[in-house]
């Protein structure tokens, strides 16, 4: 393999002279119990080749049968994307040769997708909305997983041979394809990220997929092309589209944005040099922040699509479609607005909550009795910080929403101050029990006895006459030093607000 560094031009320069057009293809792996066309389990991380059968291994004579739940999930995704649902559609064979595909064809859908012609309104960082038009959502199956042996990198390039595990082969996939996304201009990379993010939220709310990009249960291919600017008064949409490249398997939201940003800069450099863009796939490299050339893109005809003779058509009854429509959850964007209003968060606070992935957790914490402000402080502050340090997801953190509600309640009741509450959290995370148990066992409780507090305040004032004089002279900020002393005196278990009150009462 040759490693060449492609020329790029600056982003602002590229955008000033070219109009980017994108097309996004997102694959969502459904979380059904079984595969698309057979009863093998769909378990992530199982021993290799233990969830395979004659159907998903493509053995002669095996007959596929469609998974009813997968069809319903596909319809629900289509409905949530405001698509029309086909009243009759078929599967098709997409023929190509690759060792991770045991049948030498992928069972997919071609010209009759189950869902088509929809849209998703996507909210951008500044609060404006971009409508992403959806061309289609169709059903297909995943491939196996290859392990490349030999060669220096463990990559397919330079490998001597490969080892294939077919556990993933046949897991239901829904491929969601946008129409060409135009008019985004300099915000094209942001639009792409916002779309994939909104789609992830939507599918997650439907409960039909884990949509974990890092585990590959949601994958994005990003098509990018540039065309000349129409110029003042010109009709940009009358300018023909440029040649596109397809960057494969971009596996995080940030990578979607970066990969498109990079391709815009690279295309502009190629076009500037007078050369033309080669229609090809590109591979995104997280480490270098660049793409490299993949393979030339085949025309659709080369796949020799034809209707799958082993499967009969899928014809969802209108009643079923309506029933599935009724079952759709509140759309995530609408839900966020409702919750933000209920919780009284500012736009900035709400964005932090969304970025931390803490909406569901805060909702449950509030349902368990916490205040909205308290729940937000815990999940986007202390817990997000700790989860980030340990590289864990918030929901995998070993602390329940009931625990956090209990902690919030103990702080509100004046039983714990913030630093003691953090110590209780340490105990909960260390497996010492629920918050009240930990507080009892560790002897963490604010001094409730006003006499003890008063004695400490008197002692501190007596020992710090110079500071006390400053407070007497009206420098209220100086009281902070005295409060610190009182806290020390009571081993941190004093209510700081109460101590402040008492000090000021005595000195002013």
């Amino acid at each position, binding site marked *: *393999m*040759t490693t060449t560094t492609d020329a790029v031009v600056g982003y602002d320069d590229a955008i000033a002279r070219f109009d980017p057009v994108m097309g996004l293809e997102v694959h969502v792996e459904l979380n*059904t*119990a*079984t595969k698309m066309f*057979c*009863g*093998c*389990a769909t378990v992530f991380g199982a*021993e*290799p*080749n*233990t*969830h*395979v*059968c*004659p159907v998903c*291994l493509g*053995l002669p004579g095996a007959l596929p*049968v*469609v*998974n*009813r*739940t*997968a*069809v319903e999930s596909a319809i629900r995704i289509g409905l949530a994307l405001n698509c029309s649902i086909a009243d*009759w559609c*078929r599967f098709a064979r997409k*023929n190509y*040769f*690759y*060792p991770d595909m045991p049948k030498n064809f992928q069972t997919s859908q071609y010209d009759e997708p189950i869902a088509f012609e929809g849209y998703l309104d996507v909210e951008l960082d500044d609060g404006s909305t971009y409508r992403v038009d959806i061309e289609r959502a169709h059903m297909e199956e995943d491939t196996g997983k*290859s*392990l*490349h*042996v030999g060669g220096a990198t463990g990559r*397919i*390039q*330079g*490998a*001597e*041979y*490969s*080892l*294939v*595990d*077919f556990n993933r082969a046949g897991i239901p996939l829904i491929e969601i394809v946008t129409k060409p996304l135009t008019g985004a201009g300099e915000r094209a990379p942001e639009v792409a990220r916002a779309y994939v993010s909104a789609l992830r939220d939507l599918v997650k709310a439907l409960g039909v997929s884990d949509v974990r990009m890092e585990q590959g249960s949601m994958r994005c291919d990003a098509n990018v092309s540039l065309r000349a600017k129409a110029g003042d008064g010109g009709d940009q949409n009358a300018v023909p589209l440029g040649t596109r490249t397809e960057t494969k398997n971009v596996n995080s939201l940030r990578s979607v944005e970066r990969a498109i940003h990079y391709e815009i800069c690279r295309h502009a450099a190629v076009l500037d040099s007078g050369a033309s863009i080669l229609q090809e796939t590109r591979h995104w490299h997280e480490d270098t922040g660049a793409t490299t050339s993949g393979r030339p893109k085949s025309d659709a005809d*080369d796949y*020799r699509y034809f*209707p799958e*003779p082993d*499967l*009969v*058509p*899928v*014809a*969802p009854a209108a009643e079923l479609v309506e029933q599935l429509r009724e079952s759709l959850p509140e759309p995530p964007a609408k839900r966020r607005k409702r919750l933000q209003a209920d919780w009284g968060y500012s736009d900035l606070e709400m964005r932090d909550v969304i970025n931390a992935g803490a909406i569901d957790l805060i909702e449950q914490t509030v349902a368990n009795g916490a205040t909205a402000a308290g729940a937000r402080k815990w999940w986007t502050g202390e817990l997000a910080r700790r989860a980030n340090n340990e590289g864990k997801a918030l929901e995998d953190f070993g602390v329940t929403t009931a625990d956090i509600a209990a902690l919030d309640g103990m702080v509100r009741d004046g039983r714990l101050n913030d630093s003691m509450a953090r110590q209780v959290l340490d105990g909960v995370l260390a497996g010492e029990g629920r918050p009240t148990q930990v507080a009892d066992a560790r002897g963490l409780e604010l001094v409730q006895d006003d006499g003890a507090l008063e004695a400490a305040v008197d002692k501190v004032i007596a020992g710090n006459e110079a500071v006390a004089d400053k407070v007497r002279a009206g420098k209220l900020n100086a009281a902070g030093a005295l409060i610190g002393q009182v806290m020390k005196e009571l081993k941190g278990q004093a209510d700081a607000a109460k101590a402040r009150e008492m000090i000021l009462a005595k000195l002013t």
Partner: protein
Amino acid sequence: MSSLSRDEVAHVAMLARINLTDDELDTLAGQLDQIVGFVAAVGEIGVEDVPPMSHPLPLSNVTRPDVVRPSLDAAEALAGAPKAQAQRFAVPRILDEE
């Protein structure tokens, strides 16, 4: 009348990974062209009132519930593999050296 050129046959053979000699291509191109011609005869019958049929059985919505059924064990799955390693199917190098 449709016809199938020698180049088209060569292209389809390439897609199907079938190596054909020039002689075989000449022979097959002629034969396949004839076969396409035979089938095209169907188009001369008046079939305007007959809906296209995609499947010999007039069925739709043959589905199964999403319930796990036993899989093969790995040894059974790999029994027919020409080569296996680490409980996986071993396959030749995927990309040619370039």
